[in-house]
């Protein structure tokens, strides 16, 4: 019964989305306030019904209702409760339902928190959100219905793919979707602005918090996915330049560019056309990512079984939305007036530089990702484009960007003097140079590139705080004055500094682990010892252990560090009974920022097994850097909301106060 209600709620949501797509936009076109005012309630209604459908599917998973094909294929009664719930989106149908749930959640949030947006713009935004919802609800109902029944209901389910039975599934997809789908809001704003023809700095002010929120979640989602793949797959890799990874990375690059160009548009009313185009491109790349992941047209290490029929449906959605928005753009863009003028050396100039490099980088990653498809279509040759391609093309594009990153925030708007800015960075440059030379001297057997990379990371990390340092007048005024100035700085400044610092931390981790990683592969039997990077590990034997829905062979390793302390590590090989599918559970020991990573091969009948061990120096900095970036985004967001909120509240208070004064 609940299942039918869920299915019905989904159909009702589609009906509401159809109305949401039509009426507010018609209202905006005719200037009819009543029609426009329907937008928020319709958006809330769509959200409520999709949430009901999602709740019904969750209930089916929790109660292990195998009369649903989807639950039967992906669940098992012995599965722990956490994985029963996360299993809802651990499959194609459920993950698409999560996708539209988050889409409608953003619609509901615009309805609730968008009261400061002009009514016609908001009506158009909600209508565009409605169209996206219509497309994806149709997709779910026509090709990927999670409420399809199975008769007779089987006694037991097929279980969730063991690789997905992990806490990572609880965090990674929702975060990633909040990011992917969050950019639908900036897309809707761009489309709505073009429909209503109002494109100014106020538009950028409304859009920027949404772009920032989406960017923050996308960053967290990608970082979480990277760490999940790192510990779960047992290959010790944290980024493979795999099509599925690139599918999330391209919108990230475009979204990062959007964040910076919207700043220029807000402060100086310049780069309007480009910012609108970026908003369209960013969401188009999110849609493309959804298509690449869901259609399986590209061979990926993260691929799951999928159905090409569905790919064609998403491709149609892709063509309609990208084509439609670009057509609208082509009609409207020439009418836009150019905004504020600026000199090449200025804050605007620096942000344009940032945008050129980020957009070019996004384009190269896109080229490498789609090249195999193009080659196969044109010549029939089957090829793959791997990590070397991306390292050669993406790396050189990032270096100028990172080199100039500390400089940008020090330049003033409109017209800047290069000399004082460089002067402020002098000591940081000197420190970075010392770091480079010190690393080069200490690691004479390593390529010089590693030392240069670490120097660059130091430059970015220290340089991130140059603006705060200058603004607080540290070293030039009394410490007490500096301290009080620090407290008075706007939070966005701290947000920028934290975000840029995070990039530096990430870079440091990437360089260290790429240059100084050590690896050893060896066959061991009980009593054998081996070592990697000074860590000696002794293999003591294998213990069988049984879990709720799996049994495992746990290798007992005793590890001695170079300083003599001893600890145990327990890598394992699991077999999940329901699918009879093995997984590798790597053992990871974190020492400082570094990690010792041990993974197992098959256990042979005579007790011998192959052990693969890595020493990964400073590897955790990669994800710690991402945490700093997310923090920076959150700090920035809190500043904006506070300021916008205060202005609004002050205005409404004045409004309330006025009649009171009159009566007095």
């Amino acid at each position, binding site marked *: 019964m609940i299942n039918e209600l869920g299915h019905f709620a989904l159909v009702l949501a589609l009906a509401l989305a159809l109305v949401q797509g039509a009426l507010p936009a018609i209202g905006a076109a005719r200037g009819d306030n009543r029609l426009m005012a329907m937008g928020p309630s319709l958006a809330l209604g769509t959200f409520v019904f999709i949430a009901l459908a999602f709740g019904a599917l969750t209930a089916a998973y929790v109660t292990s209702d195998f009369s649903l094909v989807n639950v039967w294929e992906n669940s098992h009664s012995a599965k722990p409760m956490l994985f029963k719930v996360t299993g809802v989106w651990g499959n194609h149908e459920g993950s698409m339902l999560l996708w539209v749930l988050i889409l409608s959640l953003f619609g509901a949030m615009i309805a609730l928190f968008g009261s400061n947006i002009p009514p016609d713009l908001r009506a158009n935004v909600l209508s565009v959100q409605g169209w996206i919802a219509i497309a994806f609800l149709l997709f779910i109902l026509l090709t990927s219905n999670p409420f399809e029944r199975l008769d007779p209901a089987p006694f037991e389910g097929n279980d969730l793919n063991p690789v997905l039975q992990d806490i990572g599934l609880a965090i990674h997809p929702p975060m990633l979707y909040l990011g992917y789908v969050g950019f639908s809001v900036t897309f809707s704003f761009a489309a709505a602005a073009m429909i209503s023809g109002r494109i100014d700095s106020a538009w950028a002010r409304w859009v920027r918090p949404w772009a920032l929120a989406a960017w923050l979640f996308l960053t967290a989602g990608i970082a979480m996915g990277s760490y999940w793949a790192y510990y779960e797959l047992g290959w010790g890799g944290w980024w493979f330049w795999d099509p599925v990874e690139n599918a999330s990375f391209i919108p990230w690059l475009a979204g990062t560019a959007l964040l910076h160009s919207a700043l220029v548009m807000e402060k100086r009313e310049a780069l309007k056309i480009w910012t609108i185009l970026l908003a369209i491109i960013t969401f188009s790349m999110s849609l493309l990512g959804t298509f690449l992941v869901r259609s399986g047209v590209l061979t990926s290490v993260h691929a799951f079984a999928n159905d090409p029929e569905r790919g064609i449906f998403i491709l149609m959605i892709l063509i309609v939305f990208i084509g439609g928005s670009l057509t609208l753009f082509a009609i409207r863009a020439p009418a836009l007036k150019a905004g504020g003028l600026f*000199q090449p050396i200025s804050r605007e100039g620096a942000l344009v530089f940032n945008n050129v*490099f980020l957009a070019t980088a996004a384009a190269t990653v896109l080229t490498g990702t789609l090249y195999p498809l193009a080659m196969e279509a044109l010549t029939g040759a089957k090829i*793959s484009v*791997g990590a070397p391609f991306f390292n050669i093309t993406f790396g050189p594009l990032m270096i100028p960007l990172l080199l100039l990153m500390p400089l940008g925030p020090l330049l003033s708007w409109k017209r800047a003097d290069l000399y004082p800015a460089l002067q402020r960075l002098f000591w940081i440059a000197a420190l970075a140079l010392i770091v480079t030379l010190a690393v080069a001297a200490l690691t004479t057997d390593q390529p010089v590139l590693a030392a240069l990379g670490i120097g660059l990371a130091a430059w970015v990390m220290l340089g991130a705080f140059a603006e705060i340092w200058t603004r607080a007048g540290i070293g030039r005024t009394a410490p007490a004055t500096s301290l009080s100035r620090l407290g008075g700085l706007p939070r966005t400044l701290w947000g920028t500094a934290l975000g840029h610092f995070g990039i530096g931390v990430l870079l440091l981790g990437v360089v260290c682990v790429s240059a100084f990683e050590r690896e050893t592969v060896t066959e061991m039997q009980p009593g054998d010892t081996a070592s990697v990077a000074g860590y000696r590990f002794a293999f003591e034997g294998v213990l069988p252990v049984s879990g709720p829905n799996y049994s495992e062979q746990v290798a007992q390793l005793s590890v001695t560090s170079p300083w003599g302390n001893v600890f145990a590590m327990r890598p394992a090989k699991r077999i999940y009974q329901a699918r009879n599918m093995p997984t590798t559970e790597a053992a990871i020991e974190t020492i400082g920022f570094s990690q010792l990573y041990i993974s197992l091969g098959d256990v042979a009948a005579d007790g011998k097994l192959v052990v693969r061990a890595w020493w990964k120096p400073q590897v955790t900095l990669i994800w710690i850097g991402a945490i700093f970036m997310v923090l920076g985004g959150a700090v920035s967001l809190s500043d904006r909301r506070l300021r916008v909120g205060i202005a609004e509240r002050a205005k409404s208070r004045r409004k309330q106060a006025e009649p009171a004064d009159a009566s007095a």
Partner: protein
Amino acid sequence: MTRKQKRLAMIASIGAVLMAAVLLVMYALRDEIVFFYSPTDIVTESKARPGQRFRLGGLVKEGSIDRQGETVRFVITDTEQELPVTFVGILPDLFREGQGVIAEGTLSGDGFTADTVLAKHDENYMPKEVADTLKEKGVWQGGESTK
């Protein structure tokens, strides 16, 4: 500089960045792409040069897996031709006899030396290239097994 000159300078410098990126991409696409071949492509048509990196795809031949310590030997077949493969390291969890597989590496002497064996997360998943080749040979129909 006049406004027009400034704009020209800006466009020229953006163009220079794009040009550099295009050159990088072209250079990388010439040297860094990896072709996918089936054993037939290699054995009867000798499509790969010695030393060239490529991906070899097919099925793992039944009864061909031979583990010697950390070295594993197995045979990849497309049912017409087959090629022995040597790999050092840990094979992916879902590597099994009779299953689809993609190995990446180079030709060496009598066979193929792989440094990567592509894994999959899902036992129903068949790498697209392998599925296409096997369909051409009429060995595997696929697609229906997921439901």
